């Protein structure tokens, strides 16, 4: 186990900057998730830590020791890949034993460790099977077992769950989280699935265009996104982001006046903000059929998830979603209000304005 530090790490492929001066400190035993859309540099960052990619500049340290000159083999990390990574010519047992045997370990200790892994990952019944014969869930469990059997300094996971059926993925998330805590391994997990990131991570690192947009606990990212990108990327269904104009003490959306808390108005005025984007999660956006106070909108469609009804509507041409109580009728007017404590404001450059 080790703590990991990235110090202004950059990777360039020709003119393309894949990773742009990323600095990151990961504590011993932490589970961190690099989250972002494809091409944001998260996988390249991970591959740099593994030693499969060379950084153009910057440092990588394990427990304070610089490792960028070391080969993948010398770094003592383990990695699980997105698709094929079990060796198809070996049984599950031989696969799990591979990292031990590759390093010259022989005899009873190998057998003991493989059996222990089989117990932890519930693989005892398939140990003598070839990977081809296994369902994807078991396949990735075996990959994980092979990765951790050596007790690596750092466990690297490159979208390990994305090839698994939705149904098993949820289950695998729980299991992964559980095993990581039990073994206490420093883990870096890469994914583009924000739900996966939110449910697994101690800390989420949100990336875009090779740089870090925001890092923090899942709740921090959910409740206080630093900018419009973070607000848009995290949460499902996505946050309503509605452009509005500030005229003196009045905030207007499409000629309708939006009622804001006084403190918010003060901040807007003192920062001389003219164009503002209002952010509110669908469950903090409340529609009342035929209500009087708030913005008046037309209800376009309603979708129930069994517990709540979410209405689709438009404000200022922007499609939005919000909670609606029973007793609505489609195409009827409804009034929209936002939960003031959960309301977010973003300035013209997309940064969040605190208030």
């Amino acid at each position, binding site marked *: 186990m080790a703590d990991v530090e990235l110090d202004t790490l950059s990777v360039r492929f020709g003119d393309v900057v894949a990773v742009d001066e990323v600095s990151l400190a990961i504590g011993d035993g932490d589970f961190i998730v690099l989250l972002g859309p494809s091409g944001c540099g998260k996988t390249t960052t991970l591959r740099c830590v*593994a*030693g*499969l990619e060379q950084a153009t500049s910057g440092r990588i340290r394990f427990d304070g020791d610089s490792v960028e000159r070391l*080969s*993948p*083999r010398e770094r*003592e*990390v*383990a*990695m699980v*890949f*997105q*698709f*094929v*990574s079990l*060796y*198809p*010519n070996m049984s599950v047992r031989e696969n799990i034993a*591979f*990292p031990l045997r*590759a*390093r010259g370990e022989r005899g009873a200790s190998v057998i003991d460790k493989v059996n222990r892994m089989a117990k932890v990952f519930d693989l005892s019944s398939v140990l003598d099977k070839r990977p081809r014969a296994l369902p994807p869930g078991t396949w990735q469990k075996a990959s994980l077992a*092979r990765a951790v059997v*050596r007790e690596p300094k750092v466990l690297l996971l490159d979208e390990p769950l994305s090839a698994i059926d939705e149904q098993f993925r949820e289950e695998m998330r729980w299991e992964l989280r559980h095993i990581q805590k039990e073994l206490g391994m420093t883990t870096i997990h890469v994914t583009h699935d924000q739900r996966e990131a939110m449910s697994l991570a101690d800390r989420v690192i949100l990336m875009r265009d090779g740089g870090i947009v925001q890092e923090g606990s899942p709740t921090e990212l959910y409740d206080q996104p630093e900018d419009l990108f973070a607000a848009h990327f995290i949460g499902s269904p996505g946050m309503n982001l509605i452009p509005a104009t500030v005229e003196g003490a009045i905030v207007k959306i499409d000629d309708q006046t939006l009622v804001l808390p006084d403190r918010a108005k003060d901040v807007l005025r003192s920062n001389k903000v003219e164009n503002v984007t209002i952010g509110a999660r669908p469950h903090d956006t409340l529609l009342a059929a035929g209500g009087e106070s708030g913005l008046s909108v037309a209800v376009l469609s309603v979708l129930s998830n069994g517990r709540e009804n979410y209405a689709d509507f438009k404000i200022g041409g922007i499609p939005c979603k919000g909670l609606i109580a029973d007793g609505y009728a489609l195409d009827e007017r409804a009034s929209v209000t936002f939960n003031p404590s959960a309301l977010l404001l973003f300035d013209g450059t997309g940064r969040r304005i605190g208030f």
Partner: protein
Amino acid sequence: MANARRQVPRAMPDGLVCGLFLAPSLAVLSLMVVYPFLSLLYYSTLRFSVLRPAQGSESVGMLNYTSLLTDDAIWDRFIFTGQFVLATVVVQFVIGIAVAYAFTRDFKGRDLLFTLALLPMMLCPIVVGFLWRYMFNSEWGVINYLISLFGIGKVDWLGVADNALWAVVIADAWMWTPFVILLATAAFRGIPKDIQESADIDGASPAYRFFRITLPLSAPILLIAFLLRLIDAFKQSDLFLAMTGGGPGSETETVSFRLGKIAFSYFYTGDASALAVILLVIIIGLSMILVRHLNRVKDQR
């Protein structure tokens, strides 16, 4: 759908339709393969020479076969051919796999070098034979010049049977190692990058990775290459014709070289046919291993 199909009126039964579609290719196949093979079998039971058709042919049963198989000189040819096949295939595979493995790495000029490495395979065997014959010439050949730089005296490469075997092995390996390089490179490149990287991270040394991952995963294709080279080497005669002419004496004649001599120098058509049948049986045996293996590879995919 099933009902609709049953209602379509049929002028001919299905079996007849299939038969008609197959008929042209079956006809060509029997003309090209079955007839020559049967006539070969027939000639192999005759005492007959195409040079003297007027003398007629006399049926001798299995006599051609028994006289061939009890002839020590023929067995010597089989042993010599076996030595040649073993030596050349081993050399081709050791060098071919090593070079192919080097080509899996990225380096500048790799594609150009790869194309150059494949060139010898595209040359005509007779040309290759004469090329090497001149290089192995004991008086003015470049090989003897090169080894003289290391203080080694002149070697009579092509005039001594044991030396000539190795000289032709070198020429044959030079010509056909590219084939092994081609297939081995394809096999190595077919291994997913994730698996190679996984092995690196799991702590496998390059050698461990090569023998435990790369080689086992490319074994199916390498085995196909092996069988093809084996069959081809077994049939080799052009290089011997160009480089040694089978000499000294007939010490460097392969079986198929000898077959050519019996058929077209001595014109013992009956004996030659019998030897051809024996060769054919051996090659069909090897091919059956190949075809069976190919089917297994297909099933695995």
